[in-house]
């Protein structure tokens, strides 16, 4: 009985560890914050680039859903996702708040003149500090929040067709 127990322990512990290693082989290694949903976004106060108005987190409660999109004129994947932003604006009542990340205002304005402006509100984040408060670590990145300011979805990288369809589904569900 005692000997059997020893065998079980001595074979079991390495066996367990090796099993975990095996299962670990299939996990994705690159870290991302996609899973970090469910929290509320912090209080913020942003100033619009075009008009002389401000927006705070409380203003977001007016709409069912808001998409906060982080972008810059010097970022090429941002161009790739731009048409989806335009479509979201025209096809739904989703409000898109844009945060222009570490960019020059004139370049940002030219970019939007060229590609059209999907933003209900456009703020600038010159040194990137505002984006950190939203948990951003690269661009483009987008956060979908509901009227209770809860983060529903995070999109790391440009929004693609799959993401676009997903947003449409969520936003038009009510």
């Amino acid at each position, binding site marked *: 009985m005692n000997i059997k127990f*020893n*065998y079980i322990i*001595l*074979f079991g512990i*390495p*066996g367990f*560890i*090796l099993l*975990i*290693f*095996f*299962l*670990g*082989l*299939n*996990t994705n*290694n*690159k*870290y991302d914050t996609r899973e970090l949903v469910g929290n509320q976004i912090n209080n913020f106060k942003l100033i619009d680039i075009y008009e002389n108005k401000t927006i705070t987190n409380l203003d977001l409660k007016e709409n069912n859903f808001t998409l906060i999109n982080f972008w810059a004129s*010097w970022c090429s994947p941002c161009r790739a996702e731009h048409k989806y932003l335009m479509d979201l604006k025209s096809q739904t009542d989703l409000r898109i708040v844009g945060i222009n990340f*570490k960019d*020059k205002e004139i370049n940002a304005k030219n970019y939007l003149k060229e590609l059209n402006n999907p933003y209900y509100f456009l703020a600038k984040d010159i040194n990137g500090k505002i984006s950190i408060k939203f948990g951003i670590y690269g661009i483009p990145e987008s956060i979908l929040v509901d009227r209770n300011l809860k983060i529903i979805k995070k999109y790391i990288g440009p929004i693609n067709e799959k993401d676009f369809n997903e947003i449409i589904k969520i936003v038009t569900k009510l």
Partner: protein
Amino acid sequence: MLSNIGNTLIILNILVTLIIIYSSHLSLKNQEVKISKKIYDLSLAQSTISIVTFFVLITGFIVSDFSLITVFQNSHIDKPLFYKISGTWGNHEGSLLLWINVLVLFSYFFLILNKKTLKNYRLSTLIIQNFLIFGFLLFLLINSNPFSLVFPTPNIGLGLNPILQDPALAIHPPLLYIGFVGSSIYFSAALASLITDFKGKLFATSIKLWVSISWVFQTLGIVVGSIWAYYELGWGGFWFWDPVENASLMPWFVMTALMHSLFVLEKRNTLYSWVIVLCLSTFTLSVTGTFLVRSGILNSVHTFANDPSRGLYILLFLSLMIFSSIGIFLKKYKKENYDFNANSKETFILINNWFMAFFLATVLIGTVYPIFTEVIGNIKISVGPPFYNIVILPLVIPFMIFMALAPNIKWIKNSLDNFLPLTIIIISAIFLNVLIINFFKPYSIQSSLITISSLFLIIHTLIDLIKCLKKKVNLDYSRIVSHLGFGLLVFFIGINHNFSIENDFNLKIGEKKIFENYKISFNSVKIEEQKNYKTIIGLFNITNLKDLSQETLKPEIRIYSNPETLTYETSIKSKLSYDLYLTMSNINRSDFYNIKFQKKPFMIWVWISAMMIALGGFMRIFKSEH
């Protein structure tokens, strides 16, 4: 053509390996007293084939034969010759070939240098070692063949990563492989010893040399890796508790424990089972480390591209190794009676093992814990330097005290006759610490205790050295040198940690920054074109405001075109009393440059002490050759 030669040689090697296993198996059964010449010849042939195969691959790198996919991916027409050659083992496939060479050469030399030991023991070791060799040859042929072809033959090559073109990085893998791959031989010998009942003192003597060799080279490999990290990677540190570093450190802990336990087995003929466990664990940890590093399961700064299929194979191999060694050990295990007096050298060596087990457990748990949390709980966490430092550092204090006391304790039973000298040494250590704090600046209690215990070890060992020199007895220089080296290493790392000055700030060209008695002037920037990169060299003037001495430092930002990489070359001024360390990096879309400056006291003594540890091991190898 090289591909055909290479592949043929690998298959030939596999055949020879299988014949060796078979012939040895037959030889085990026959009544001959000596091992037949055929087996020696086969083993020599195996070594020759392995070496030639390796040279064939080197040739492929030298002549830039890009039809070989390994050469294509890891070399480049414009690479300097020295780095073309060292690039041979700087990649996964080539390094596996180096693994095999070490396995084979250790197998051969163990065979021919152990002629006075039991025939069956030697044959069994050979068989088991050749099973390991077979496993790796199979892995090489099926999954990671350096001679696989790419078609059509490319022209230029992909591998011009400048970070890898460094002399320290060139010798780092061979050193480590002689270390932890060399431990395979006493893994095999341990299993052979269990199977053939070749135990005790005789067994210890047969593996002593191999344990020492692997320990010395493992130590050197780790130190060279740290030196490379310090001079090349630009963060001013030399140990990051990165999974790859930990993978090389874990076998080192077991090797150290094993080296010390062998003394007990040899002198007192006990601790046999424990020595076997240590022998089996060393190579097991080596393969585990290789698995962790090459499978892609852990996130780290390493050069090998990661591939889960490799991971699967290595995991399978590891599982076979572990289960068969546990099985054989359990079957042959006989209970031993330990008869240790509390105040005896045997007990102190047990204490060494105890601490090594603790250090090993900490590093192992810290390294693999993130895998467990991810697989079981789907949570990703990081376990980094703060964890290891908090857990390990406090225990280094008693460890060094034991390290100082142990060598002078007698075997079997010691009498407490050296109480007064010990007290004097401790007081001297405490007093020196007081001086340091008073003349420079205070630091934490833990740092004080570490300084005191390292000084205790240093002074105690120096007194031993003087005693040795006086008596002119060739007592124990190797131990004195290694222990002294260790004490000095901890001491200097402590000084470095407590008195380093570092700062991180942004400057524009022409600006200066003043802090802590240093004025750093960012004078200008020079742009140069080199053969395969463009460089932006910053000219910095560092003035010590206390003694008005000046140094010029020239960090660089290098832009390589093939492949497009940006590297930051640190400017380091190494002197005996301190190193000055400056890194400059550009900030996108800004005129500012980010500057990191460090002054690190006695940095070079850290390397010297670490080398001393290895030197002691070397001395032991040559002493035992007499």
